[in-house]
């Protein structure tokens, strides 16, 4: 039966689950093959493709998420990243944001030297590839990213609370900001600008100075997002798939190669998995799935289903290397519940 849970046991188990999940996701993401594919010069992925890769990564451990929670996680990630890219004072700062992300990742796995090495290797590749780009080239990268995130206005509780996002979903642009580029200027326009203290470090280790890209949840924070009114003006949208095929052939090829680099852990019968629910209750999660506005639904590609369409042997070979994973949304049952599992111990 359901006995009272000992707090220490819960914490220990939670800790070890979190550690296992982090380890697995980070190991999967930073593995050499995957990174090799990512570093190849290529077009920006479509929104569908990115969401598919993200789904795979999120399921690279024993953690599982239902559609609604997955959607919410993705929303949070995209809006947070959009915010970071938009607010970079200098175009080269988008690289510092990435370095902040990597610094945080390294902190999670600081006790695992193997994975740490992999992350450092990626870090070095980023430095090699991007450090010498000009401000103009960084601005082009930034513009391309911003076009990708254009018209997404999902409201995020933590941003609304901190007053960095308005109720219409747009981000607040500070006009009195201590880290902007210039000494005091004398216009009577209401803004005041002060020159920055120092520039962030672009080395493997260093003080990034820039706060964008650091952990937003370092203090316990709410994770709600709000859908309604998120996309007011549909006239300015371009339909994502105007062509008959949801994905162009080249993009499927890229995706297959990328996926080929992702080794997905399959939870076998004896190993316990657990399901992460980003809502307060299961019912809330189900409701969110049903009421998600059409224009905001992410259409995830089911790679396995299209296997027979591919003539390319190489692709078929890569696909064959995939372990077939469980379909996340169907396989969860009460047996996966953390609580029930703990009862068995």
């Amino acid at each position, binding site marked *: 039966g359901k006995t009272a849970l000992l707090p220490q046991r819960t914490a220990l188990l939670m800790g070890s689950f979190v550690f296992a999940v982090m380890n697995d996701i980070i190991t999967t993401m930073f593995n050499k093959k995957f990174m090799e594919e990512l570093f190849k010069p290529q077009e920006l992925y479509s929104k569908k493709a990115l969401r598919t890769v993200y789904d795979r990564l999120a399921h690279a451990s024993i953690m599982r998420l239902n559609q609604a929670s997955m959607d919410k996680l993705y929303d949070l990630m995209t809006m947070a990243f959009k915010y970071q890219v938009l607010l970079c004072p200098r175009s080269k700062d988008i690289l510092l944001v990435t370095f902040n992300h990597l610094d945080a990742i390294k902190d999670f796995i600081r006790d695992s030297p193997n994975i740490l090495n992999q992350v450092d290797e990626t870090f070095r590749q980023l430095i090699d590839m991007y450090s010498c780009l000009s401000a103009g080239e960084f601005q082009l990268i930034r513009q391309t990213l911003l076009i990708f995130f254009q018209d997404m206005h999902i409201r995020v509780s933590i941003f609304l609370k901190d007053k960095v996002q308005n109720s219409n979903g*747009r981000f607040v642009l500070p*006009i009195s900001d201590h880290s902007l580029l210039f000494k005091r200027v004398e216009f009577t326009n209401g803004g005041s600008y002060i020159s920055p203290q120092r520039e962030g470090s672009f080395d493997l280790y260093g003080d990034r100075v820039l706060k964008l890209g650091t952990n937003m949840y370092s203090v316990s924070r709410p994770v709600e997002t709000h859908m309604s009114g998120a996309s007011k*003006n549909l006239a300015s949208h371009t339909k994502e798939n105007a062509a008959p095929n949801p994905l162009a052939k080249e993009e499927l090829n890229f995706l297959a190669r990328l996926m080929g680099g992702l080794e997905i852990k399959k939870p076998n019968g004896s190993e316990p998995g657990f399901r992460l629910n980003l809502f307060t209750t299961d019912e809330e999660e189900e409701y969110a799935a049903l009421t998600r506005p059409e224009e905001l639904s992410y259409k995830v590609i089911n790679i396995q289903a299209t296997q027979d369409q591919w003539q390319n042997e190489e692709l078929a070979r890569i696909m064959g290397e995939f372990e077939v994973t469980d379909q996340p949304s169907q396989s969860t049952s009460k047996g996966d519940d953390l609580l029930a599992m703990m009862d068995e111990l």
Partner: protein
Amino acid sequence: YNNLSVLPLRDKQLTYFAAVHGSTVSLASASADGLSVSHRQLQAKEGGLAVSASIVTQASWCVLPSRVLLVLTSQKGIQMYESDGSIMVYWHALDVLEPPPAQAVFARGIAAASGRFICVGTSSGLVLVFDIPSKGTNITLSEVLEEHRDSITDIASEDGDADLVTADDSGALCVWRSKEEFSLLTKISAFGWTCSSVKLWNGVIAAGYGNGQIRLYEAMSGALRATVSAHARWIYALDLAPLTGKLLSGAEDSYVQIWKLSRSPDTGDIEIEHCHSECVTDTQLCGARFCDPEGNAFAATGYDLSEIVRYGQV
């Protein structure tokens, strides 16, 4: 840079607006009282086929003595339409031979020049000069100017001793004169920041940079005449009202600034005066243009903003 273009049509009491949004260009026309009359969308398509849409970098009306064309630049190439966007009269595909893999390919920077050319820049630093007949579709590429080594950002022109100014990602500027062909008059070196926008007026070059500065140069000699710390962030757009010498600048810091350029009658020195500031709250400006040649009204566009905001002088 500068994703907005405006075409005032005096005789029809209308103003056309073109705003670039990702892979589409939205055209709207409005009457003086602000009521929207018509609306259209254009996409960067190769020869009329709906292939995967590419990102449009700029859309700009080019006013020539005999005709007005709407020019679109994108990652695929250059398209020219009749001024209302109804018919495409010319398509030029960018060479995609074997580009160095890490380089983006696109066209950017549009200007009409010398009453018969339309000049368009490319990501490789080339400036393509197209010869435009007074009517019809027999547009030809007549010259390629090879002087820049970085991607072209903007091009400006006027009728004068110096006819054309081209700017690039590194911040270098080239000044040209056109007789039978274009010849280089002078080159202005970069100082470390992208020149995102450039205008030419009365022999004065006004250039906007990624560090928020506006610099004024003497076009014939290339000599620097003034430096203004105009904005706290990247300048995206400059526009000029040729009848008054008013200059506007729009930047990522959400401000539009209006300036007045002039030449001192005694010394002939170039002068610049600040006239007005406007903050478009919470908006990183992507485009800004005067709505008339006197500069009594202007319009602005911003990232994530689905409107064109118009300001008029009261």
